[in-house]
């Protein structure tokens, strides 16, 4: 309290705000809860266990780091570590062993956040850097741990239609010998490599872009990371954040708009051939667009800068999806734009009152 006295000496009028870090962070946690329910529904209790392990490891690591650096350990409970832990767990496949999100969370908090000076000083999104760390360290687990949705309930019996991907087609052609549930984006990526068989790849793409597939994507009945699949539940959380005044819409709207535009432009085989709706709903775009692109610490503060950030991240996402080495580019595109944030802020700084435009 003694430090706060410094700020009491300004001249009136003052505008009060009830917003503070703790409130915002817990709001985000509440907004992420619907997706957790969807994860339980589609991937079973296993998903909940992974999320709990991740959140626990994140808070514990935060506490240990603060203790080690002799800072107030209360910061560990301001909710920011919980958000990082949640987001990291939402970004791993449901089929991974329990220690994987624990290692990822510990890295995200200790290296991506606390080593740079703690909340507000990290240059990139900790959860996404944690994910990038896991992908680089355990490529097999992170790209093959997909579980087909509803498998935990139906046991061995797998509803091929429910997976949202044309698995039946792939099974017939001998492409798959077991079903671990390829993600829609994986299937799309494969079609790009069938250069010699335009008909086959066209057929698979038609299935992916079909109404049935879009519906599954929207509900979340697809293979994917724990928290990214159910678009409708993520929307619920986003609406809550908008109502609470936490979400500033420039970032998510410019990002989603950019993904849709470039998805339509080059998201299919040729030009102007992609399905913008598919590219919006598949993969991590909705999760990233509402909960990671909007990270207050690592994105621009200027209004123009936020729009540039969103468009740039959307373009990078689509470039990686179409031509990159990974089926999904959401996390890397946001990380790359995070690094450009100081530069964007610098060039979009609005003029101070009374300042004359240079060369104007």
């Amino acid at each position, binding site marked *: 309290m003694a430090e706060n006295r410094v700020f009491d000496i300004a001249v009136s009028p003052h505008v009060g705000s009830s917003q503070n870090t703790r409130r915002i962070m817990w709001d985000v946690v509440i907004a992420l809860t619907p997706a957790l329910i969807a994860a339980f529904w589609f991937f079973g209790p296993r998903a909940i266990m992974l999320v709990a392990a991740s959140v626990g490891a994140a808070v514990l690591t935060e506490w240990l780091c603060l203790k080690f650096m002799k800072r107030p350990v209360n910061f560990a409970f301001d909710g920011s570590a919980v958000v990082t832990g949640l987001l990291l767990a939402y970004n791993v496949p449901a089929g991974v062993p329990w220690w994987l999100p624990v*290692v990822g969370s510990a890295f995200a908090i200790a*290296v991506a956040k606390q*080593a740079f000076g703690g909340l507000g000083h990290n240059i990139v999104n900790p959860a996404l850097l944690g994910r990038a*760390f896991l992908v*680089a*360290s*355990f*490529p097999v*687990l992170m790209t093959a741990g997909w579980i087909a949705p509803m498998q935990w309930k139906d046991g061995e019996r797998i509803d091929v239609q429910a997976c949202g991907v044309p698995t039946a087609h792939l099974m017939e052609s001998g492409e798959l010998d077991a079903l671990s549930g390829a993600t829609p984006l994986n299937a799309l990526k494969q079609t790009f490599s069938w250069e010699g068989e335009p008909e086959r790849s066209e057929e698979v793409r038609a299935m992916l872009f079909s109404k049935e597939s879009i519906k599954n994507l929207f509900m979340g009945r697809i293979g994917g990371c724990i928290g990214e699949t159910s678009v409708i539940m993520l929307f619920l959380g986003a609406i809550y954040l908008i109502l609470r005044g936490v979400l500033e819409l420039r970032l998510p709207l410019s990002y989603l708009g950019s993904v849709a535009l470039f998805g339509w432009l080059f998201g299919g085989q040729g030009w102007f051939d992609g399905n913008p709706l598919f590219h919006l709903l598949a993969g991590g775009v909705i999760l990233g667009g509402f909960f990671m692109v909007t990270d207050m610490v690592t994105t621009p503060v200027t209004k123009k800068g936020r729009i540039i950030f969103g468009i740039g991240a959307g373009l990078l996402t689509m470039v990686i999806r179409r031509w990159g080495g990974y089926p999904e580019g959401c996390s890397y595109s946001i990380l790359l734009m995070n690094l450009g944030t100081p530069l964007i802020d610098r060039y979009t700084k609005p003029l101070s009152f009374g300042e004359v435009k240079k060369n104007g």
Partner: protein
Amino acid sequence: MSLAQDFSRGIMKENPVFKQALGMCPFLAVTTSVENALGMGAAATFVLVFSNFLVSLFRKVIPAKVRIPSYIVIIATFVTLVDLLMNAYLPALHSSLGIFIPLIVVNCIILGRAEGFANKNKVLPSIVDGIGMGLGFTLAMVIMATFRELLGNGSWLGFNLLGEAYQNQPLLIAILAPGAFILMAFILGFFNIMEKRKRGGAK
């Protein structure tokens, strides 16, 4: 300054990697295993000692204006020697170190010691300085490689330490480029903290 000081200075007090931040390129690139680190350290030490020796020997003959080209010629001679010797007798190590053997020519530790020490000192102290700096460089490489090999492969100098289960799912990033940068940051940070504590204690 005594010979003992010339020798020990390179190992800790003025360690080329940890204190002078020289030789970063091989330090980051070839420390994927302890074996590579030892090989690289030995090769660099060999070149360092002999280049220091020759530079010191000719320090009054070499005109100041062309001293850098002269040093490079001397260093390149010994690097070529090491390159050919290693290729002949240690072909496996030679192929795993690859381009980084010829690149010893531009290793800033060697040029730095030629310019900063051998150029101004007598032959014997220069040789001792070369040995000390070479050992310091090797030590730094081995420390880094220990972390990277242990985390990234579960072994040390080829011996399996962490067991089969770990080796199936190692922390692969440790032997990739990003892991090198992250670990380097932590190691340099650790030495900076030690330095700060020591200075604080002296006051």
